[in-house]
């Protein structure tokens, strides 16, 4: 390196830096700065404070409408409903968004619904825990190649396996809310019949009194274990219940031996119906095959995949145990019910403790009935809350339209998205709201988008803590179908309204837009089995109206 210059030498041995002792800025500058920025800051914080208050009031109004664990507003006419809606109307756009956001919350995040889910799981816990125990027991005794000693498959074990198989055949995908479809019931019945028929129990030509007694015992016994109702449950319980219900008038105080013909015929009538095509994933079907092979007492040699399938089946129980919000809800229930006056509640609390420890246990029918009752109450409150929110949202939208306030397209998108909700009144309110903004370009465009969305994106149906991928996919498909139907009907209404009141749409929607988003969409949907009829009838009505209108038709010609 070269010799250092004098500058560098000085730099290498720097003098000690002098600290700044005087003012860093001129006084006039500092004063001016504070004079400007202090008020700006104060005004900013003032506005922030006001925004906090507004947001707090909106959140409070939403909470009032939504309700809580203890109560919910009974009706739209209630003064508190009016008061809450007024609070939302003071800031209509924000009120609209807040109401919709509350409606869009996930079911398990609502404290009432997390209790409902927990209670439903608790009522099924006996079945679930015993089935898991059976599966674990089988797996413990099965080697890598699928070999299992036949003595492991006792009568009790095989009965549990048959129950599982019947449930898997029932295909929850076909369940609309509240009640299983006829097809689902048929499917479950058929599944049971298949297995029973293998035993030739119910062949009318072979029914003997003692066999009839066995059938009778089976019906009565199954009536005792009331199956929990929907939110993903199967139709098997409905089959059993319905079977019993149809026979009830004959069964009360009746001697079973006198009923053999009637029992036989009724049962045969139910079970001898063809099930629809059952849609299960490939993996699910293979698991069912293995379960059936086990239930039959391993009649054939294993193929080597049995263990792996059983492990997959067992993994599914991860979703049947209590998770996240359900655990918290159950703990709160334990805390509340263990001090309750009702002995059934106290008994339930003890059972819940065991369930949290994942022990095999079963609720007694009385305790189960208490759980169902409480779950129904909570779900009622939840649904009532949703209905009130949806109504409030529609009312604020009315004010937005009156005041001609700006609504960004993502908000319209989200609003239409909510047509997937399971409660009809909620959907009706949303449809009322959409009708108010039917003249907007993005309303028609997005309604058309959702109407023609015939399939879900499978990537969105990811496994969650609570749901397996298949279950999630089923739920999303149900929601999509529901929304699709509503949007198709709405498209028809909008199409008709456009033909009759074209001038009202003139600003934003041209006939070419309507042709693209309404007419073509309905034409596409004619082939869909879910909404095809609605689409076809709708198109016919629009065509009729279009041809009948004064002046040139907008969309159709006489011949096409």
């Amino acid at each position, binding site marked *: 390196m070269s010799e250092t210059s004098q500058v*560098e030498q000085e730099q290498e041995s720097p003098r000690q830096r*002098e600290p700044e002792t005087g003012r860093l800025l001129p006084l006039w500058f500092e004063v001016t*700065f504070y004079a400007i920025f202090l008020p700006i800051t104060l005004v900013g914080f003032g*506005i922030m404070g006001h925004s906090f208050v507004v947001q707090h009031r909106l959140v409070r109004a939403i909470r009032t409408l939504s309700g809580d664990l203890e109560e919910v507003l009974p009706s739209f006419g209630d003064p508190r409903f009016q008061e809450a809606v007024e609070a939302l109307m003071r800031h209509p756009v924000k009120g609209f968004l*807040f109401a919709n956001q509350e409606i869009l919350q*996930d079911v398990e995040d609502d404290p009432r619904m997390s209790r409902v889910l927990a209670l439903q799981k608790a009522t099924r816990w006996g079945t679930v825990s015993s089935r898991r125990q059976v599966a674990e027991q089988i797996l413990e005794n099965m080697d890598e190649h699928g070999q299992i000693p036949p003595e492991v498959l006792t009568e009790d074990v095989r009965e549990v396996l048959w129950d599982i198989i019947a449930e898997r055949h029932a295909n929850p995908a076909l369940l609309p809310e509240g009640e299983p479809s006829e097809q689902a019931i048929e499917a479950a019945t058929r599944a049971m019949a298949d297995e029973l028929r293998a035993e030739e129990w119910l062949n009318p030509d072979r029914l003997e009194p003692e066999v009839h007694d066995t059938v009778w015992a089976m019906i009565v016994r199954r009536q005792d274990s009331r199956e929990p109702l929907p939110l993903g449950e199967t139709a098997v319980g409905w089959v059993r219940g319905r079977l019993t219900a149809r026979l009830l008038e004959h069964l009360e105080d009746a001697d079973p031996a006198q009923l053999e013909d009637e029992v036989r015929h009724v049962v045969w009538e139910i079970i001898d119906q063809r099930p629809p095509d059952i849609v299960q994933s490939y993996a699910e079907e293979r698991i069912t095959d293995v379960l059936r092979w086990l239930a039959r007492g391993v009649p054939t040699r294993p193929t080597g995949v049995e263990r792996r399938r059983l492990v997959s089946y067992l993994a599914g129980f991860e979703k049947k145990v209590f998770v996240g919000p359900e655990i918290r809800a159950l703990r709160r229930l334990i805390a509340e019910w263990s001090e309750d006056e009702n002995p059934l509640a106290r008994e339930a609390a003890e059972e819940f403790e065991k369930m949290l420890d994942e022990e095999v246990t079963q609720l007694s029918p009385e305790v189960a009935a208490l759980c169902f009752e409480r779950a129904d109450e909570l779900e009622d409150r939840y649904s009532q809350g949703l209905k009130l929110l949806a109504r409030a949202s529609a009312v604020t939208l009315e004010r937005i339209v009156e005041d001609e306030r700006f609504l960004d*397209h*993502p908000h319209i998108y989200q609003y239409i998205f909510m047509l997937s909700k399971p409660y009809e009144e909620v959907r009706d309110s949303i449809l009322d709201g959409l009708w108010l903004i039917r003249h907007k370009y993005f309303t028609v465009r997005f309604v058309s988008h959702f109407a023609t969305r015939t399939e879900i994106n499978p990537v969105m149906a990811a496994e969650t803590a609570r749901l397996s991928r298949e279950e999630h996919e089923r739920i999303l498909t149900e929601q999509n179908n529901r929304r699709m139907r509503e949007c198709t009907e709405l498209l028809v209404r909008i199409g008709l309204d456009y033909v009759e009141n074209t001038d009202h749409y003139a600003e934003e929607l041209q006939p070419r837009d309507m042709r693209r988003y309404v007419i073509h969409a309905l034409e596409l949907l004619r082939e869909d089995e879910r909404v095809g009829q609605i689409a076809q009838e709708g198109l016919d009505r629009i065509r009729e109206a279009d041809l009948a209108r004064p002046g040139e038709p907008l969309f159709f010609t006489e011949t096409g």
Partner: protein
Amino acid sequence: MPEEDYFHLREEQGEPTEFADGFGIKAILAGLFVAFIVMPGSMFMWLMLGQQLGVPAVWVTLIIFLEIAKRCRTTLTRQEMFVIWSVTWGILGAAVMGQGMTFIWMQYFVRSDAAQQFEIASQIPFWRAPPPGSEAYALRSLLHRDWWPYLALMGTLVLWQRLNFFSLGYALFRLTSDIERLPFPLAPIQAKGVTALAESEEESWRWQCFSIGSTIGIAFGALYVGVPVLSGVFLREELYLIQVPFYDFTVSLQDVAWFRAVPLAIGTNLGGVFWGMVLPFWVVMGSFVSGVIGRLVLNPILYRAGVLQLWEPGMDYIETGLANQFDFWLSFGIGTALAIAIIGAYVAISRVIKAGREKRETGISSTAPPKGRGDVPVAVALLFYVAETAWMILLCHWLVPKFPLWILVAFGFGYTPLMSYISARLSGLTGHRIGIPYVREASFVLSGYKGVDIWFAPVPLGDAGAGSAHFREIELTGTKFISIFKAQVVMLPLAVFASLLFWSFLYRISDIPEDYPFAMRFWPRDAAVRAFWMTATTTGNAFFLQAIKWEFIGAGAAYGLILYPLLRLIGAPTLFVYGTIQGVVGDPAMAFPQFAGAIAGRFYFQKMFGRQRWQEYAPILAAGFAAGTGLVGMGAVALRLIASAITMVPF
């Protein structure tokens, strides 16, 4: 307790005693040169090859202006050089990583398959991008009125970011540098590199040192960057004489019984060796111990204990690192960050109390800024920050009114200052910053917010920690702070204008990314990843929340809070603790070359040149190396660009 061991590092850095203004006509001319000549090339190169001009362009610009100055028989002082450096870096950053690029990216994202598939496209708000089907896309015009809302928002965001630098960044600099006296070990690299260039005419020892570094950089760059890039022009596959960026031994290591879930790779960038020579020795040792040895020992234990569950045999270095991050190290790193904040608060408060005592006794505060540096009162900077953050919060609230306001306030006045301080502290001690991943995402999901617009909102979440290191660089070159402020005021609008102008032009002449190979290849993947993240607030499915484990956060905090006072009590180097924290959050592959550099520096070069002199040489060598490598890289990429352009001609 003994004094902090890094105080002496600070003393050895040779702080200037006088400061001068570096802003003038030369800086303006440099800004115009970069904005209208260099920037368009950088943009084009980014789209075509995925590479920016970046640091090489900065050095080239400096050298060009230096030579022009010589021809004009004038000189560039080091302050002027540094302002040119700062201006160039700022303008180039705005070109590709700044808001101009966001326009181009958004016009693609809205129309991308990923956004359609994940149902995002129709939910992007008007203040971020025109809705799908807008005329703005058909006309390919970034100046269409549908873009105006975002144009207005963009201006506000750019302003906020810059104001943050001068407000919170400056306040943190005063705290970490003037009060805590942290060494900022990497700051001398830039500062002394610029100083060396400024003295090139005198052929001082700094210039010679810089030349040696750049020669090594050119030679290495030719092998590391030049050969692969140029071979890609002539051969079917690129030829790598040295594996880039590391040699991966992770899978091979899995054959040895004990080693499970250990990410083992050796970085091959020689720049790491130079960094190792510059960084404090004990920081590098700590980083190596935790990043390499710690993972070699701890990861198998954690795996066997069932903590590391995501790892599977066959995973490579990156996959193993990601899996382990998710299971353990991310949470542990969060805990160590909290420990840094607590320790820093303790040290800062101690120093302030001590300074107050000194001032009462002597009338002079040891924490007072040096004379002539161009400082402002910290209260002014903080008031500035409070004012602009309050209004940014209000803006965000106006755009996304459903989002809980208290979270925005917590971000702006809680998280951002805290994390900026932690980041500034770690940068001041180890040269690297720190961040807690998923904070933004977790807050969006846990707030219960439903919608996609929040992902595009100007949430007041940032890290001003880098600002403190930059202020230290400014200080070391003897440049008055007001120079940088003036440069920003003048150059920022220019940068934004030029960025918009050229992006508009590129977009107008052809749809992006259709005609650009790199963008065509990687943008769809990036779009899918971003769209997938956004589904966390539409579906509620937030897998990343599972990565936050409170017990491991506690373990990380306990580690930092126990080891630090222990080492101080026994007089051991506390920089070791910070080094281990850096090793936890950093890239283990880089720990190897840094370790080699630290050992070579400490046990060989220091003995050869003497400790003081070697500490003068090391940052300049590193600066020269970066310049040399960058020059080779830029040349190679330029040739590749020409080759690509030729092959596109249809004859």
